[in-house]
């Protein structure tokens, strides 16, 4: 049986929810006004009062420990960020803690949200002033502040990326976060989401991203193929991203092997054709030279699926070379190819190559 206090609180909360919403709205308006009209001092008949801005950090700090914040507070906090960015010069003149205010606003708005909940939609009003956050957050923010920021912008990217500049405007910042390692689960998840949400900038990130960051992220299929209505887009973006990384200058050598397997798995579940992607023949050569047969096995499966022997001239010799040098990879490669075929990839020529390989392995006397 519930205690009378809890019953009472339940009853009271249902009665006061509307009032909570309204009083919180008044607080929001008060904060906006204080930030907008930043007066150094105010004179009253009682005496000279300090700048109310000085009270604001304490208030925001108190709000950050409120776990069950209303959802509207998130959109309001995002609005505060815009006003803070807009009024930054005035704030710095009257009150030097504008950066602190910005970070606290982000914390109030996004720190408490469940970063795994993809279905929660909070309407955020994005303005041009929000762009100024990028420099401040990535330059001076802690990992949690960056996570707050990424949470806000991935939230934006889900619904309004075509109307407002979103994560791709800060693509260059995402590639250089190795100093934040080890990543917190929240930041790791949000970075993975951010990379998957950067749309057409994903190849730029793939070319520029630090391999330390990728190693720190330790991305697996479960991180990408989450239950989300935009899982296909997200997965294709990641596949595109990994393809860019692999074909980048140092990707062949520095990209960890799990990412190669991840690429194959993403490809096996992807519906994207990748036909327009430029094939780089240097990858196979580099892998053969470095004798990285596992990576080569993954890459050959990928090349068979995307380009085939018609698009990649050195594919068949490389495949035969792999079979010859690393016979153990054959079965794994065959399994991948089958998985790719099941998803609709046309890899008939690989079958004939396998038959040819079987003949070579068994010899002419083998029935």
């Amino acid at each position, binding site marked *: 049986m519930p205690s009378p206090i809890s019953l009472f*609180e339940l*009853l009271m909360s249902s009665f006061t929810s509307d009032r909570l919403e*309204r009083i919180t709205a008044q607080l929001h308006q*008060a904060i906006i006004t204080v930030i907008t009209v930043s007066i150094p001092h105010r004179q009253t008949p009682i005496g000279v009062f300090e700048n109310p801005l000085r009270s604001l950090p304490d208030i925001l700090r108190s709000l950050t420990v409120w776990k069950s914040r209303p959802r509207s507070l998130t959109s309001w906090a995002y609005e505060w960020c815009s006003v803070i960015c807009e009024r930054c010069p005035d704030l710095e003149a009257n009150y030097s803690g504008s950066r602190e205010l910005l970070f606290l606003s982000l914390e109030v708005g996004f720190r408490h949200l469940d970063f795994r909940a993809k279905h929660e939609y909070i309407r955020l009003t994005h303005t041009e002033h929000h762009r100024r956050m990028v420099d401040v957050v990535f330059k001076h923010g802690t990992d949690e502040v960056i996570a707050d920021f990424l949470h806000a912008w991935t939230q934006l990217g889900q619904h309004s990326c075509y109307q407002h500049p979103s994560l791709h405007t800060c693509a260059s910042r995402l590639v250089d976060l190795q100093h934040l390692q080890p990543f917190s689960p929240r930041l790791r998840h949000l970075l993975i989401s951010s990379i998957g949400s950067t749309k057409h900038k994903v190849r730029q990130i793939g070319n520029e991203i630090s391999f330390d960051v990728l190693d720190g992220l330790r991305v697996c299929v479960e991180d990408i193929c989450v239950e989300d209505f935009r899982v296909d887009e997200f997965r294709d973006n990641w596949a595109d991203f990994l393809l860019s990384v692999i074909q980048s200058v140092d990707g062949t050598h520095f990209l960890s092997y799990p990412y190669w397997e991840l690429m194959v798995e993403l490809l096996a579940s992807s519906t994207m054709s990748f036909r327009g992607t430029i094939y780089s023949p240097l990858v196979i050569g580099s892998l053969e030279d470095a004798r990285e047969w596992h990576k080569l096995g993954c890459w050959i499966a990928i090349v068979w699926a995307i380009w085939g022997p018609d698009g990649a001239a050195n594919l068949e010799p490389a495949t035969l070379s792999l079979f010859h040098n690393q016979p153990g990879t054959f079965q794994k490669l065959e399994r991948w190819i089958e998985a790719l075929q099941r998803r609709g990839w046309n890899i008939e020529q690989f079958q004939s190559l396998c038959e040819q390989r079987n003949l070579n392995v068994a010899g002419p006397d083998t029935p």
Partner: protein
Amino acid sequence: MEYDADYVKKYDEDLNTTLIFVRRPTLLFVLAADPLTSQAGLFSAVSSAFVLDVQSKLQPDPNEQSAALLRAILLTLNQSAIPGESPTVPPIQENTPSGITTTSCLMYASLLVSLLAAFIAMLGKQWLNRYLRNTGGSMIERCGDRQRKLEGLERWPFHSFVESLPMMLQLALLLLACGLCRQTIYINTSVASVLITLTALGVLFYLSIVIAGASSYACPFQTPVSTALRNSWKEIRPRITPVVLPILRIILRLPLKLAFWRRFQRSHPPNPGEDIPTPWFSALYSRWWNLRWKIQSRICATFHHPLAITSTLRCRLCRPPLPTDSSIPEKFTPWLAPKDLAAFLRTNGSDVRCVSWILRNITDPEAVEAAVRLVGTIRWFEDQAAIEPPYDEIFSAFEGCFDSTKEVYPGLEDRAYYSLRAILWIHALANCRSREFARKFHLPIISKVTLGQGGLSHLLNACYKSTNGYYNSTNSHYNSINSRYSDLFETLYTTPRETNHIHMRSVSNLILHLAWAKQSDLQVPCIGYPDSAGGYGDWDTIPVDATLNYFLVWCILLDSPVEEEVLRIQDKSYAVSYFSLRVTHVIVH
């Protein structure tokens, strides 16, 4: 409660006196016409005897009719039996003599008036029983119910009903006396003259004591009529004096005016053809001009603006009305329904009267404690006609919780807590009006010895810090008051972990009002319990109302205007929650 017992006893005795005066015998007489069943009773015994006597005379007397017929028969048989009379049949008396009819009317009217008085007396006893009946519930609910009944008795003319009973009996007596006089006139004029004289003397005596009682409250010969006359005169006098006095003055001066006019006419005979103005018209015309000039100058001296005229008239002619749906501008209450505010004002006013009355009249410890609890949730000083809070009584209740060593008596911790909370609350509300006004409600001087554990220690600590700064200062400059309030504020908002929800609500409420009083050096209250790291945690365990209060404090500190109506409702939501908590307790257990 003892007051109610005295109150009911007083009326009950009046009603019993009335019932004894006109007890059952009168009623039984009417129904059974058997005076032998009558019991002792002054009026019943007297009236029943006379009414019975008169009743028999309403119909023709058969014995007289028989005697007349026998006389006619005798004269027919022997015409010389009675010389000088002829043997004629006497006419049958159809109409009752007018004297008997008038006597009967007067006596029956007397009887019915006394019966009506008995009927009302019986009803009055039933009403008193209902007043004493408890509806159950907690002490506070019973007090509220009792206060509602008491206000109902005052609002509805219960007192007038009870006071009208003796007047009805006096009227019945007068009617009986008049009936007796009329009857004796019919029977014997000599006896009648004696009766009429004595009745007139009695009436004159009664009128004289009524006038004497009405003229002075100190006069011992008070009657209900004199009290009613005196009260009516108080009400009517200021209204009729400006009208009646000039008229009386005109009437009194008219003979002088007429005399002057006649003398003037005699000394100045009119020229031939000249119209002679009538003296009435002239006097009235000059009087009217004088009156008009006086009214005009009075209005100009009193009012300076048309709006001031209406507002002053409203204040003088009627009590300030409660805000209604239409009178509350919506801009002041952006999210509060005006109905809520009007209902709040009614409830708050009722609570103010109830608590003030209980603390000033009742000594029952349980009732006092319940009232003291309620004090900390009431919006005092709401309007100009509001009752002053019973601050001295609460102060005494608080001081009575401590022994000579300033330690709380065992078992009185709750009482000490609630009384100190009430003191702080009243002080804060007074401070919201003005600092000078707040000086009337000074805080108790607390010594460190009394500081204990729990919510009480929290309040004591706050009070100790604040009064230390205030009373140690040699001058009463407001800077010292500022420091006092900042200390109070700072200590209060760090709510200790061991306190309960009710305490957190009340403290947040107090802080809200201190903030609303525009203190100059208030700090931002951080919500939650202070933890070991110096921060604040467990924010979500704070009640919703306390959270909203802190939000409003923040709004105030950020210079956002918070309307007083919002504060009122916030207070009351806390008070409502307090009562709801008690109700929930009852339901669950």
